[in-house]
């Protein structure tokens, strides 16, 4: 991918959380006030399509039932996208300070 990755604020929030460890979707919502229950999985799915995050089905004990859960983790591309987004934000902030 030659294009500079574009990361929205919500995506940046998710990526910065996933940088530390793997999370379930609900854990992400509980960790951040920016994320909403109704939209977090749609955002995660979009980020999966972009290649920023990957997910795997959580292991379950034999006695556990219910719908299968997924655990999300950041990918290499996601880390680069986040680093690029943070660098751009920092550059923009420093440019603002210079112009003032």
């Amino acid at each position, binding site marked *: 991918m030659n294009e500079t990755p574009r990361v929205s604020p919500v995506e940046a929030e998710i990526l910065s959380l996933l940088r530390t460890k793997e999370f379930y979707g609900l854990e992400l919502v509980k960790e951040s006030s920016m994320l909403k229950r*109704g939209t977090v*999985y749609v955002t995660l*799915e979009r980020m999966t399509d972009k290649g920023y995050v990957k997910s795997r089905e959580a292991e379950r004990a034999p006695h556990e039932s219910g*719908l299968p859960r997924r655990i999300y983790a950041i990918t290499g591309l996601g880390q680069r996208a986040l680093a690029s987004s943070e660098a751009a934000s920092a550059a923009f902030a420093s440019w603002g300070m210079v112009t003032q």
Partner: protein
Amino acid sequence: MKSLLEKIVDFVRRLLGLHERRVHFLSEHVHIYPDEHPEVKREPVVFVHKSEIRVGAKIRPQDVLRVVAPKLIPRPRIVKPPAGRAVTFLQFVMPKRDFERVFAQTIQDFRDEYFELLAAGEVRRAWCRNVFIYGTLALTIAAWSMASIGKMVAKFWRLSG
């Protein structure tokens, strides 16, 4: 923890609006009849026996079982988990991948919280979760629809360009 017998006495007491002091709770092993105890004739008395309740007039054991006991012992019911019908509907309507990765995750989050609250005895809050799930599902469907439309537009844009 009240025994079944005590629960029946409480139920009859509530049913008749009897005052505490008017109710005589008798051991399930003792047979007492008004004829043998003249003092009971002065006030309404509830006699409780292992197999019968006496409230002025005799209530037959089969009536206790038929009328009183079902109200005291809640029948265990098997009910669907929250959004059980919504899962069936969404599985039918949505693509499998999107159902598993978006909708199933949202529903399972609520179900986990719902069962945790039920286990903690917080029935009211669990019921609120059960209602709240439909609002969140509606929001998820709206977000998913918008994302799907966006994807299609982007695809056509790339194809045309």
